[in-house]
């Protein structure tokens, strides 16, 4: 391998800023530094001192809240007029913060985010007064101000046998307590929660409840304050084995509050209170953003594992009699062994792909947020709700497809006439919204599902590369704890089944599928220029997936039962899993190309930059091959394993086999890329020690 193509050091901030597209955002760069200071300072010290070994909300953990306040992590969620310091959408900012905190301990990230989660229903759907009140109460005091910031908890999940994955039927109840003809109604709220984050110290909670009174319609979310009349019982701490730096309790509430605490407000019609938003409408708006952040917590773990593993591998035999300085055994240690290197390449490649997917999703929501508000305004002005809204979207569907086609074609989109048409179409908010929404509805669940689920599995690989050390508390980088923590990330805010369920519906949206077809064309162009990045494999994988989806949607199994059906998880969920691999690879390639294009312009060391590009290109290729393998396996099983000789047609088999054969050929060279990446891992310079206590 040419020396100039070597990976010289581990990627630093300059590289990440380009890949994850915040090199122009100094506000975000500062946020990263601030969160990193907290993570690798107070958080790491707390973990190293055994802070995770208790279920109680200890003083040490409580001190973290103050640290979050002082470093700006708490105020990050707020608008400048509410006391925050970053204007506009904050999905990427929050994602980067969670990523930095989770690099050391994701429980601290959960802890810092829990209050935001409690505020999110208010932020997304609250009345202006509710927003103003609670957002500003939660802002940390400014210098000179004498005030303790409020903290919240989000209460949806209920004790068994009630709300868990299935959130449609609630056992929490709301009734009218008093309603004088002139005054505001007073409502009685009863709710028991389970596994509620931030409950050890929350001053207010946002609670999902259903009406138990004919004078209140449907369900809603309400705000309870700890000083409201009635019982505000925090309950006992959950004996969880993960994220111990966050507080989790099983609380119980029975309180009287004014109806003005219904999130988003209400109207009264014929003596009945009609909440403006049902609990499902609110949680849909909340989770579609916060889940991306959770996905990135697991990505941080994988990428944070690289340095400790390299250090362990290299130093494994030093100090022994047979390993004297200068011998390969001394200098390279376990890195003499191909398997140890190849597995580390897999971990790194997975970390890159999942970070690329997650940050792309966060950026997508930053672009999407203002558009969604615009859409809400338009729909409200035109009185478009429910079915009427759906019809309005159906009406723009054809033009939306035209828009996707035009924007995806790089040659056509430089032609002035086409550009004019694109602008004209984009100006239609409902159209632009529906295109962006189609992607949002796919990449958010994909990030949550794949980053955490496959991430947890890959984290186990990371632990095993450290041998017995990996499963001790002393393991540098806290890898054992991170492995276990990843399982929570796969569970809370909607476990994998919830994400698969959402994907199995949203991924069949024609507006999403059309965007995917554009990506195939795009990948072909990339492949023509950079054959070594694995774009052909990803493109072909997309083709196979699309062909299989189409086939499954039209076909029946050997028993004559429809193959693609929401309830047929064996088919739909498997296809959802397959899609995630494809998306992750696609965004990983995009980030590597961004580095290739922009990195050289600003590189302090051009040779070093070429080394990064070449290494990340190898990782893309490795990941593309892995994705191709997974998708191919799933599609093949779904295509063949539900059929028998009678139900499968020869032409279909031929077509499927042709797709697979083409895909197989695209794997050429991928293992050589893996060899090169592995070789790079033996050369890369790493720091003397980890920059946080262990």
């Amino acid at each position, binding site marked *: 391998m040419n020396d100039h193509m070597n990976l*010289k*050091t581990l990627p*630093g*901030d*300059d590289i990440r800023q380009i890949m994850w597209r915040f090199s122009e955002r*100094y*506000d975000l*760069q*500062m*946020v*990263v*530094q*601030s969160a990193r*200071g907290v993570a690798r300072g107070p958080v790491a010290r707390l973990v*190293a*001192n055994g802070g995770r070994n208790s279920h109680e909300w200890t003083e040490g953990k409580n001190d973290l809240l103050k640290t979050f306040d*002082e*470093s*700006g992590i708490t*105020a*990050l969620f707020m608008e400048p007029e509410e006391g925050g*310091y*970053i204007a506009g959408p904050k999905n990427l900012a929050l994602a980067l913060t969670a990523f930095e905190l989770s690099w050391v301990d994701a429980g601290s990230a959960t802890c810092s985010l829990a209050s935001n989660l409690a505020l999110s229903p208010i932020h997304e759907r609250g009345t202006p007064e509710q927003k103003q009140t609670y957002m500003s109460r939660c802002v940390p005091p*400014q210098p000179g101000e004498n005030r303790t910031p409020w903290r919240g908890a989000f209460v949806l999940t209920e004790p068994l046998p009630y709300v868990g994955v299935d959130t449609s039927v609630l056992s929490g109840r709301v009734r009218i307590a008093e309603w004088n003809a002139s005054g505001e109604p007073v409502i009685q709220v009863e709710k028991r929660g389970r596994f509620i984050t931030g409950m050890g110290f929350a001053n207010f909670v946002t609670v999902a409840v259903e009406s138990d009174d004919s004078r209140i319609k449907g369900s809603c979310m309400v705000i309870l304050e700890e000083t409201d009349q009635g019982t505000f019982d925090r309950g006992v701490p959950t004996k969880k084995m993960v994220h111990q730096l966050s507080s989790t309790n099983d609380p119980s509430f029975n309180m009287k509050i004014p109806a003005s605490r219904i999130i988003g407000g209400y109207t009264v019609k014929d003596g009945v209170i009609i909440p403006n938003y049902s609990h499902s409408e609110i949680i849909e708006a909340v989770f579609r953003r916060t889940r991306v952040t959770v996905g990135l917590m697991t990505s941080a773990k994988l990428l944070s594992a690289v340095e400790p593993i390299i250090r362990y591998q290299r130093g494994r035999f030093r100090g022994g009699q047979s390993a004297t300085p200068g011998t390969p055994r001394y200098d390279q240690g376990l890195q003499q062994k191909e398997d140890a290197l190849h597995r580390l390449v897999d971990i790194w490649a997975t970390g890159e792909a999942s970070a690329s997917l997650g940050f792309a999703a966060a950026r997508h929501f930053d672009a999407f947020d203002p558009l969604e508000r615009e859409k809400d305004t338009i729909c409200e002005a035109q009185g478009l709700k429910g079915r009427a809204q759906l019809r309005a979207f159906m009406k723009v569907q054809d033009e939306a497809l035209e828009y996707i086609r035009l924007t995806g074609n790089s040659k056509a989109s430089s032609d002035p006439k086409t550009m004019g048409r694109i602008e004209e179409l984009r100006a239609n908010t409902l159209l632009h919204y529906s295109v962006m929404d189609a992607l949002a509805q796919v990449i958010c669940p994909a990030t949550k599902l794949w980053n955490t689920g496959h991430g947890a599995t890959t984290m186990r690989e990371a632990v095993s590369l450290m041998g017995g050390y990996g499963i001790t508390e002393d393991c*540098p980088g806290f890898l054992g704890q991170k492995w276990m923590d990843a399982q929570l990330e796969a569970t809370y805010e909607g476990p994998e089944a919830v994400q698969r369920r959402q994907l199995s519906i949203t991924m069949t949206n024609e507006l999403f599928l059309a965007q995917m077809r554009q990506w195939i064309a795009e990948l072909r162009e990339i492949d023509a220029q950079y054959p070594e990045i694995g774009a052909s494999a990803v493109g072909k994988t997309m083709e196979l997936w699309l062909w299989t989806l189409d086939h499954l949607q039209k076909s029946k199994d050997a028993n004559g039962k429809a193959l693609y059906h929401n309830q047929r998880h064996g088919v739909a969920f498997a296809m959802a899993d397959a899609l995630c691999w494809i998306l992750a690879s696609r965004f990983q390639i995009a980030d590597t190309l961004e580095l290739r294009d922009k990195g050289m312009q*600003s590189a*302090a*060391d051009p040779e*070093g930059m070429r080394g990064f590009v070449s290494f990340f290109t190898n990782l893309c290729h490795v990941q593309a091959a892995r994705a191709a393998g997974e998708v191919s396996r799933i599609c093949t099983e779904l295509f063949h394993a539900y059929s028998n000789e009678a139900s499968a047609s020869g032409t279909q088999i031929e077509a499927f086999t042709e797709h697979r054969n083409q895909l197989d050929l695209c794997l050429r060279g991928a293992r050589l890329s893996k060899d090169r990446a592995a070789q790079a891992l033996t050369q890369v*310079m*790493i*720091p*003397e*020690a*980890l*920059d946080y*206590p*262990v």
Partner: protein
Amino acid sequence: MSAFHIIVCGSLVPDPLQTLEPITSPTGPGLKNEAMLPAVLDPWAGHALYEAANLAKNNPGSKVWLVSLGPKAKLQQLMMTIAQKVPFELVAVDGSASGFTDPFEAANALSDAIAKIPGLDRSKLLVFGGCASASRDAGVTMQMIGEKLGICDQFLAVDELSTPGDGSLRILERIEGGRYQVSSCQGAPAVLAWATGKLPVPPNNPQVGMMNMRAIMPALQKAVPAKVGSEGVTFSSVEVPKQKRETRIVKDMPVDEIAREIVAWITA
């Protein structure tokens, strides 16, 4: 109270946690992969900056400038942390911050940049810096900056500065033999090169950061290139100081025990 115009000269050095391996490159001696290693604020310059900010805070009407000579792209990364710590205005000079630059050239570039700062009032001017640098330990740069600017009151190993309020300065300085010297100075202009200072690293404050960065980004864009380096200098030999680096991570070890272990290691 008296207002000061405080200039802090300070730049970046490689993060000490990194593997720092001296090499000979085509342009002279350097560190392996230096351009790619993460950098931190030179710790001595850090003392100077935090003392300057504190002095400015306690003397209303004062202002702090940070004059930094370093590679532009790396300075930008450095600013993301230090801009959040204390309020200052950046004056960036684009050039090498390597340990192998000639201190005379560095002092020239820095004093030129200082002389060009608009609105600087010499009667209020305090020029701060480190008494040494983590990568360039000649300990002469601040003296030369003072000379170039025609400032003769120079204090080159400052641990403490007090300002009685009449514009005068009282300076605690370390001198040879582990002793201290207390000097009184009638007032600005003066050069103070800091040895330690008394202030901890301030916590990050994003509000301060957002305010600073609005001026820092244009300052970085405007950074003028400066010719510093080792051109024309032939290094007949470069020797790595005999060093043995053993990084070990310990938990819960009392300070006394750490000290005992270090002494035992040195005397072994």
